[in-house]
Structure formats: C-alpha cells, structure tokens
C-alpha cells in the first residue's frame, strides 16, 4: 500500500486515538505534577443536635482566590511519584539501610502499599497468563476434535464465563466462597474446622482470585485459538501424517508454530488486562488481602471524598509504565519475527 493511501485510511482512527487516548493521558500526567494549594483554614464554633464544639473549616473565599490565580494547584514535579503512596524512594532507602538481609528488606517493602500491590499484581499476571494460554489452546483443540454436531453447543458453553459480566460472575463466586456460602460452608464441614475461612486467609484468597481470573478470561484465548485452528493448512497436516508424525508431534511442530502470531496477540492482551486486575478484588471484598494499582486509583478518586487527583494520576501513569515494561519482550519478539519474514 502506498504511504499516502495508508495515511488516509488510518487518519480517522488515528485522530480518535489522539483525541480520546493520547491527550487524556497527557492531561493525567500534567495533573499528576501538581498538588492542591495550601489550604486556608479558619477555626470557628459549630453547633448541632449534639451540642457545640470548636471546629476547623476551609476559608472558601481565600481558597477561590488561590485557585483563580493558578487553577492547576502548586507545582510539585515528580514529588507525588516518589511519595510514600507510590514509589516511596525515601522509605525504601530507609528500609534498605535497616534491613539485615534480602528477606528482611522484602518484608519491609511489603509494608509499603505500592510494592505490596505490585507484588500481588505481578504474581496474578504471571500465574493467570500462562494458564489461560495453555488451557485455552487445550480447550480449542478439544472442541475442534468434536463431531461437527456438538461443536456449536460446546463453543457456546465454553464462552459462557466471558458472557457473564465480570462483576456479576465474581460476586456469585464470592458468595459461594463465603463462610456462609455453599463452598465455604462445605469446606468447613469437610475439614471439621468452623474457623476455616477463605476470606480470612491471604493465600486462599489469592488462589480464589487467580482461579476466577483463569475461569473468566479462558474463553477469550479459547475462541482466538479456535479461529486460528480453522486456518491450519490441511496439506501440511496431511504431509505430517504421511511422514508418520504422531498427534502430539503434529500438534507441537505444525499447529503451535502456525498459531504463534496468535499466541503473541493473546499474550499481549492478557498481560495488559491482568496487570490492571480490578473487578474480582472488589466483588470478592478481598481488599484486606490483595490490592492492585487500579484499586488505589479508585480509592484515591472516590473514597477520599475530595479526590486526590495527583495521587490517582501518578498511579495511572505508573500503571501505563508497568504495562509497557511487561509488553516490551513480547513486542520485541513480534518485531523480530516481522523483520525476519520481510527479508
């Protein structure tokens, strides 16, 4: 395709992406560099149904004047990125100085919420992603080998977890796992331990979240691989059979290499999605045991009442950087394959 034609083809998408993705990211970044004005406080008497007390409130006029002067707030540079809620440079340095070895350093690090969340998010990503890839391929091959009449219904059933909204699916599972729910209560009876609780144990909660993650995203990799299986060239398969290759050998040497571009694509999507894990944590009410960068953004914007925009902005940018780092190896690989083919 000529460069000119390509440019006109891509223009609508490109402008939409700049307008709705790139510019908002720039805006989030700019906002993350500023913090609120110094608050002007006044002390006065406040009365209500429970008597009078001395109370502090914000001087609205003085604050409005400050805002009119510089609407973005006070420039703070990368200060927010390095504070205790994010990269916590000073605290990490302190923990490093006080630690007696790697183990004590890591346990100190786990006291900082950013690193604790990062640890969970990375574990989740690196457990769920390969499992979804392997199991998705297995289900796709299984369905592909079914008699034609059964395939339709098998595909429908395999897609079900994906059709259920994340928040609904995880809430249903959460209720089942509850100490009063069918799975939780059954486990208590089986192990004869009334204080056994999935929701009270960090390792069990992590396992539950990851099992849910696999269950929910499996259909995505399944349907992609299933579509890919339809394009495996029949003559190559036949040639393999003629050469006496076993089913397993055919699978590993013909089918999987053929599907490799799809594997890269699915891996990219899964890494991105899993790194931003959010809904299961909320519906499982698992905040005591697992947090992710996304739950921090929401709590900065909502729980604080008066939102902490800089903090939420900094976490968003750090999430984007995290995703970019995770994707780099896959992208480099794809680029190499692309170059190899074009030469």
């Amino acid at each position, binding site marked *: 395709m000529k460069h000119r034609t390509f440019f006109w083809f891509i223009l609508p998408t490109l402008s939409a992406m700049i307008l709705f993705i790139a510019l908002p990211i720039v805006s989030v970044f700019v906002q993350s560099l500023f913090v609120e004005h110094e608050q002007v406080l006044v002390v006065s*008497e406040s009365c*209500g149904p429970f008597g009078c007390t001395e109370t502090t409130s914000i001087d609205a006029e003085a604050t409005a004047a400050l805002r009119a002067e510089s609407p973005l707030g006070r420039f703070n540079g990368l200060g927010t990125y390095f504070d205790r809620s994010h990269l916590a440079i000073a605290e990490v340095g302190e923990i490093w100085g006080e630690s007696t070895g790697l183990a004590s350093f890591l346990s100190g690090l786990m006291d900082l919420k950013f690193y604790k969340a990062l640890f969970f998010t990375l574990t989740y990503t690196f457990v769920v992603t390969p499992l979804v890839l392997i199991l998705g391929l297995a289900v796709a091959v299984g369905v592909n080998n079914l008699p034609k009449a059964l395939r339709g219904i098998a595909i429908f059933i395999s897609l079900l977890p994906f059709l259920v909204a994340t928040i609904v699916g995880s809430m249903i599972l959460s209720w089942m796992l509850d100490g009063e729910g069918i799975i939780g209560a059954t486990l208590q009876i089986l192990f004869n331990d009334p204080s056994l609780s999935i929701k009270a144990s960090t390792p069990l909660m992590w396992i539950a979240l990851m099992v849910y993650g696999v269950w929910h995203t499996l259909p995505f990799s399944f349907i992609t691989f299933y579509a890919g299986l339809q394009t495996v060239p029949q003559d190559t398969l036949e040639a393999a059979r003629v050469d006496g290759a076993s089913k397993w050998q055919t699978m590993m040497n013909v089918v999987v290499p053929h599907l490799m571009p799809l594997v890269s694509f699915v891996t990219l999507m899964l890494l991105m999605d899993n790194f931003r894990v959010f809904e299961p944590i909320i519906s499982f009410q698992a905040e*005591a045991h697992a947090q992710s960068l996304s739950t921090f953004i929401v709590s900065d914007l909502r729980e604080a009442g008066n939102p902490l925009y800089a903090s939420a902005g900094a976490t968003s940018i750090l999430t984007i950087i995290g995703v970019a780092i995770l994707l780099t190896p896959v992208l480099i690989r794809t680029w190499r394959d692309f170059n190899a083919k074009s030469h």
Partner: protein
Amino acid sequence: MFLKKVAIAGAIAGLMGSAAYADCGPSGKSVRILGSDFPAIQAVAGQAEMNCSSGAGEFTINLRDNTRDMMNQALTPNPAEYTSVIVANSTLTQLMNDDLVRPLNDLVEKYGQNLQPHQLITIDGNVMAVAFMANSQHLFTRTDILEQAGVEGVPTSVEEMVAAAEKIRAAGIMEHPIAMNMKVGWNVGEMFNLFYFAQGGELFKPGSAEPNVNNAQGVAALNSLKSLLEYTHPDHLSHASNETQALWEAGQAAMAIMWGSRGGAVLDDEGSTEQVTANTLLSAAPTAGGGAVPAATLWWDGITIAKNIPDEDAEATFAALVSGLNADLMVEHNDKAIWLIDGFQPGPAAAGVAATAGSGAKPYPMIPFVNLMHNALGSELVDFYKGDESAEDALADVEAAYRTAAKEAGFLQ
C-alpha cells in the same frame, strides 16, 4: 437527653394542632433532590414531593447508594445538577471543602417555624444544614442466648462483652457470637474511631492538621477491638452493615455493634424469625478500658441547599423539604428513624441511640481533613487485624499514610 426534648416539644405541638397546609415558596421553580437510599430519607423526600410537587415546575428525587462519591461533582457546575443534597456530618464537610452549599439563615427565618433549634447545624453563625435524624452505633443483644449461657444482664463494656462471648462459646451455643462492621476501608476506620474516642483520644494535635493516633490510647483502642474480634465470624474483614444485619437476622450472632438506623429493620417482621426479633434488645454502645464514654460516634442526617443554583430554586427546594419535617411525618414514619423532628415518639428501635447519646458519646468530627485520616485508618490498620503487624507499627503507618495524603491535599506542609 435530646430525644426527651424532642418528645416533649412534639407533644405540645400535637396539642396545638400542626399546620394544615404546606408553604411551598415560589411556584413553578425546579426542585431536584439527591440523597442516600434508606427509609428515613425516602420518607422525608416523599413527604416533600407530596406537599409541593403540584406547584413546582420540576420535582425530581434521586435516591441511590454511594451518593458521597458523586455529590461534589454533581454540585460543581453552575447551575448544579441538584438543588439539594441530603448529607450527614462527614459529607457536609466534603461539600463545604469545595464551597458547594449555601448558608440557610434567611430561609430558616422564612420557612423554619416548625424546626427545633437543635436541628440547625451552624458553623460560625451560618446555618449550613438542617438535621432531621440522628444515628450512632450501639449494642444489639440477644437476651435469650445470654440467658441460656448464664450471663446476667446486658453487657455495658467491652470486657463484659468478651466475658459473655466466652461463656456462649464455652456453652457450645455459638462459635462466633459477636458481629461488627469490619469491612476493609471505611468501616475499619470507623471502628477505630469508636474505640479511640471512647479512650479519650483525639485524631489530630489540637489546632493543627498533624495526626495524633500513634499513642497509648490508640494502642488501647486496637487491643479492645482485637479482643472482640476473637469472637467474630472469621470473614469479618469483609462484613459491612448488610452482612452483619444478615447474620443477626439469621440468628447467628448474640451481640453486635451495629448502626442504630438498622434497629428498625432488625426489629420489623421481615427477614427474620419471631425468636430473633422478640429477644433482640437495643442498648448503649459499650465502654472500653474502664472509661465512661461509650464507643460510638454520633451522626446526623440533614438537608443542604446547593450554592450554584438560582435563589428562587433554592427557596422552593428549602420550603418543600422543610414542609415535610413536622409532626405529620411522624404519624406514618415514626419508627423509621431516630428523628430530631417535632412530634417524634422514641420507640424500642430508638432506645440504643438515645442511650448512647445520653451517656456522652462524641459526634463524628466535622473537620476538613478527617476523611483523609479515616481513609488512612481504613487501609493501614488491616495488617494489625490480620496479625501481620504490631499495633504501634500499624498506627505509625496510619500517620505516615495520612501525612502523604494531607500534604497532597494542602493541609500539611
């Protein structure tokens, strides 16, 4: 104490006969109300609609969950999305931090004949809200189970609760007799407040935004809480009001620290059995560590009027809402809340809040930076409850997390 005043005033007003018609202010104006979705607010908003919707140009009511997440955004544009938001102590602070509600002095003078002086929330002489109901946490007990376990009387302190819980467990009646709202986040923070205030603690150093929780009172508060958590359901870190109410109504708890506003729902004839409701007793929140102050915070819910709206809309909205706050409302809705309104007759569902307020519990503080502290408590104390950290370390983390947020919000340097 305040309930008695309300009840007497109500009786007098009842004798004199209350106003027969409602003054709805200027006609043809727009009234748009936002509030949380629970029975008392439904009653207040519904009454306002009944009285005044015929003369209004527009009358909408939007009651939903988590209004605090969006009320500031809704009131920021000019004209604002709503003319009134129904708030509580903490959400009034949140709106005032962004200067989104107007002083009501002139409107109270014009339309507030039925209001009691204690309903007016004044800050520096300006009436910023009109309260219509009170709320606080307090103790719910199952008298039949306590009796069965051989516990005499109703526990009045944490220590007595623990002793009673141990007896119930030892008698094999229940493994987890205590229920509390300990869901990570807001509830964990609030439970700390209760016990910290009961120990006489102050969240901030006097006259400043400097945190003040890492001290002996803070440690004592955490230890009181932990002694209770020995006897709660193992899933307690995921239990909020809906979960604890469900446990109670299912007969799976014998003592609970829950909101007074749940009292009506627990005692009504829905969702539970006769055995549970007939034996549920509401009493003052427990004291802790030998103190006299109950572990509770006092709350009110009330009306505010948005700042960024035309004055006439504000007047019509205030008139409509206030028209419902009188003895007439009590005829049908008396048991739906602990009303601060003229004509309220405190029933069994109000006994717990009345006793708690009467024995000197503190109101939830209306300080611009209290939300930041509440959040820090809600997220950083979890490690202590899970047993991963000492009380002192957890409280030090709370102060560090609060400082980070308060610096960003401009309250600390």
